[in-house]
């Protein structure tokens, strides 16, 4: 018996080694391709963490100020929903409190981009076929992609730990912070790896991963709004809360990070199992045959077919998030009492008329910024069509360039307004039901919809880049990301006016509750119109491709 079993085991070992053949070479290829992408992300995340710690020291220099801030923050449901609970009023504790949530979201996005880029995207473009026809094991592409993500995450962990120690924070807390961020990154690298096995398109793989990230965010927010110490089961169910629950700079509990490692390992194992079983280029979600004759009657119809899926996905996510956050707004004021500082922060986010309105306004702004991510993506879809050479035969038809662009811009502009309206309705309904104030629906819907001009302004910048400097159009992602980071950290850090003014969202009146003056809307609309017109004029004149 053993004589039979041993060769079988040896064959299995051999088989798994063959499965990984070429991983080293593919990893070098991945790192070579990402020689700009990974360093930029790592640097941004490190700067975000370290800079934030330095800013806290500047804005809250005394222990008394910090203790008061933390006490008031933790007492406030809505503040906990946004930033999570703070476990320590030390410098490090505060710095981490503000940064961990957005830092976790960003590192998750980085990991997702790296993994999908080297797995499903390679298969979708057909490049993988050529690679896999060489001496490359079945699981080598996935392994090399995960290793590249692991290298990026380790770099962030190490640099954040070093950086925080460098600005004078305790080494233990700094290390846990770095590891916590890296752990979250690994979880979402694994989720992206699994999503890449399930779907046939890179876009859908990113969408699925994004949906998991969004769900994790909402779970964490709901859980943290309910308890002051992060102990809610809802929060524990969200990988985004684990970094915080490792409590850096507050009696660290590094064992919590084992949860991240464990989940990452389990999800990676599932992805590996699937990767070994399927055909190259194929997915587990099957594609059905389509109609033999088409009804797509022009560039608008085509844009609708190409963009409706993404609109629907974003819409679903925003409606669910709106409902949850709307319901959480109820009672935002109750627990506040006379806590000056949390009132100030939320009011810097959301305006100065009553804490509930301020919270709703802050959420409206946040949803506006998230919608801007969609809008920029809808604009840059054009660049994708162009570089994949699918735009060429369309523009070789009797289609004016501007009409082709208009199809996609309709989604960027009208589509984002639809998203805001749907999200606003959901948030209004959630708040109205929870607060027993059904009349609030329209007020809240209007407040969220009023973010549209700022969303359009960012989309307009993307149009300008697309038209004038198409090679650098992807920089629009950087701009919308910058607006999100400023919008998120700015109010808590009380960033200088000059910095806050960089994002169009700062210039909008805080609604509901604020004074809906027309002038700011008109100015931003004018700017959006001018930028869009300039971008389109440049697009009409330039070479395609």
């Amino acid at each position, binding site marked *: 018996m053993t004589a039979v079993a041993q060769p079988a085991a040896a064959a299995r070992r051999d088989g798994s080694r063959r499965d990984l053949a070429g991983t080293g070479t593919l990893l070098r290829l991945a790192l070579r391709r990402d020689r700009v992408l990974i360093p930029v992300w790592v640097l941004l995340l490190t700067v975000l963490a370290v800079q934030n710690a330095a800013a806290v020291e500047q804005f809250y220099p005394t222990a008394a100020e910090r203790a008061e801030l933390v006490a008031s923050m933790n007492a406030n449901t809505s503040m906990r929903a946004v930033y999570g609970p703070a476990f320590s009023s030390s410098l490090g504790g505060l710095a981490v409190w503000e940064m961990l949530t957005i830092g976790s979201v960003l590192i998750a996005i980085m990991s997702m981009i790296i993994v999908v880029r080297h797995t499903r995207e390679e298969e*979708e473009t057909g490049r993988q076929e050529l690679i896999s026809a060489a001496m490359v094991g079945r699981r080598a592409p996935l392994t090399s992609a995960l290793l590249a993500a692991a290298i990026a995450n380790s770099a962030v962990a190490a640099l954040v730990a070093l950086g925080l120690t460098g600005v004078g924070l305790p080494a233990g807390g700094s290390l846990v912070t770095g590891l916590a961020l890296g752990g979250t990154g690994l979880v979402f690298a694994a989720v992206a790896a699994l999503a890449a096995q399930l779907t046939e398109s890179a876009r859908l793989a990113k969408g699925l991963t994004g949906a998991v990230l969004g769900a994790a965010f909402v779970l964490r927010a709901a859980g943290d709004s309910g308890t002051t110490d992060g102990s809610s089961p809802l929060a524990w169910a969200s990988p985004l809360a684990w970094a915080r629950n490792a409590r850096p700079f507050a009696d660290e509990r590094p064992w919590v990070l084992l949860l991240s490692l464990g989940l990452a390992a389990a999800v990676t194992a599932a992805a590996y199992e699937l990767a070994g079983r399927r055909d190259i280029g194929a997915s587990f979600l099957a*594609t059905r045959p389509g109609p033999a004759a088409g009804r*797509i009657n022009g560039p608008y119809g085509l844009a609708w*077919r190409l963009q409706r899926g993404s609109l629907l996905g974003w819409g679903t996510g925003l409606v669910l998030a709106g409902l949850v956050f709307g319901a959480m707004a109820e009672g935002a004021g109750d627990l506040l009492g006379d806590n000056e500082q949390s009132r100030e922060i939320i009011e810097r986010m959301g305006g100065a008329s009553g804490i509930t309105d301020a919270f709703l306004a802050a959420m409206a702004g946040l949803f506006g910024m998230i919608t801007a991510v969609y809008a920029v993506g809808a604009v840059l879809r054009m660049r994708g069509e162009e570089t994949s050479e699918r735009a060429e035969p369309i523009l070789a038809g009797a*289609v004016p360039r501007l009409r082709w662009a208009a199809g996609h811009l309709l989604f960027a502009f009208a589509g984002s307004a639809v998203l805001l309206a749907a999200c606003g309705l959901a948030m209004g309904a959630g708040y109205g039901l929870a607060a027993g104030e059904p009349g609030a629906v329209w007020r809240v819907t209007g407040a969220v919809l009023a973010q549209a001009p700022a969303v359009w302004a960012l989309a307009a910048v993307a149009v300008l880049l697309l038209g004038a400097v198409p090679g650098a159009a992807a920089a629009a992602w950087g701009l919308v990301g910058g607006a999100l980071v400023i919008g998120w950290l700015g109010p808590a850090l009380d960033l200088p006016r000059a910095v806050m003014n960089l994002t169009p969202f700062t210039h909008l009146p805080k609604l509901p509750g604020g004074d809906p003056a027309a002038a700011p809307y008109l100015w931003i609309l004018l700017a959006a119109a001018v930028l869009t017109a300039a971008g389109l004029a440049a697009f009409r004149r330039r070479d395609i491709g």
Partner: protein
Amino acid sequence: MTKATTAISVSGLVKTFGRTRALDGLDLHVETGEVHGFLGPNGSGKSTTIRVLLGLLRADSGTTRLLDGDPWRDAVELHRRVAYVPGDVTLWRNLSGGEVIDLYGRLRGGLDTRRRGELLERFELDPTKKGRTYSKGNRQKVALVAAFASDVELLILDEPTSGLDPLMEGVFRDCVAEERDRGRTVLLSSHILSEVEALCDRVSIIRRGVTVESGSLTDLRHLTRTSVSAELADEPDGLSGLPGVHDLSVRGRRVRLQVDTDKLDGVLRRLAETGVRSLTSTPPTLEELFLRHYQDEPGKPGGLGNGAAADGEEVVAS
């Protein structure tokens, strides 16, 4: 609509990308109703020219007329009358082939549905499959069916048969011939010389962004060399001094040489004077013709048309 006699008229076309000069004074003239071959080595500027003709790229200088319009300014009106097939068709993964064919048709002057059905049958294409699942050849067929079923005056085909099997290649040739019979104009960029020989009335050969030759295939043949090998009655003499003679090798009474086709007379006369026992003369193959033009010759961009052929230093693969 008045039909101009010239469908495409390009002269002195220049297009640069940064420091690269992709087109350097290119000329191209395509008469209405002809099938015009557009040839050149990889990277010589064929696709760039086609993109300028389609108004996708903006010319730096030179004049370009397409169906009596300006390809940049009148792009949309012109595109109603033009169908284009790129060499590498990319489809949307979630749209079926049938949907894409109909979309392309609607973006042009419209689609002849009867002909669409007939073409689908002839090309053996399943229109219900999604873009992602088509093979390279089948993706080409999607664009070809859309182009041939479109109601247009001019077809611009950029290496349209890459990936087609020989059977489908035959269907493609039939379709092009039908288009010509219907009075349509075709600009065909291709590397498949038998295809060009079978289909094209005239050809233009470009290299490094410049037109090096243009004319009918007969004209071009005339400008190249014929291989002659002969067994003579006596040892020949004076052959090397004759104009247009290349690669002469004499072994006793056996002679092998190449001669510029328009100088064949003189060589035959001299051979006859010596006395001929046997003689074979091979006309240039199309392959040889193109290889001569494609071959890289820095400093001598003129090719055969302006006397470079007389130099006789070129080594021709045979």
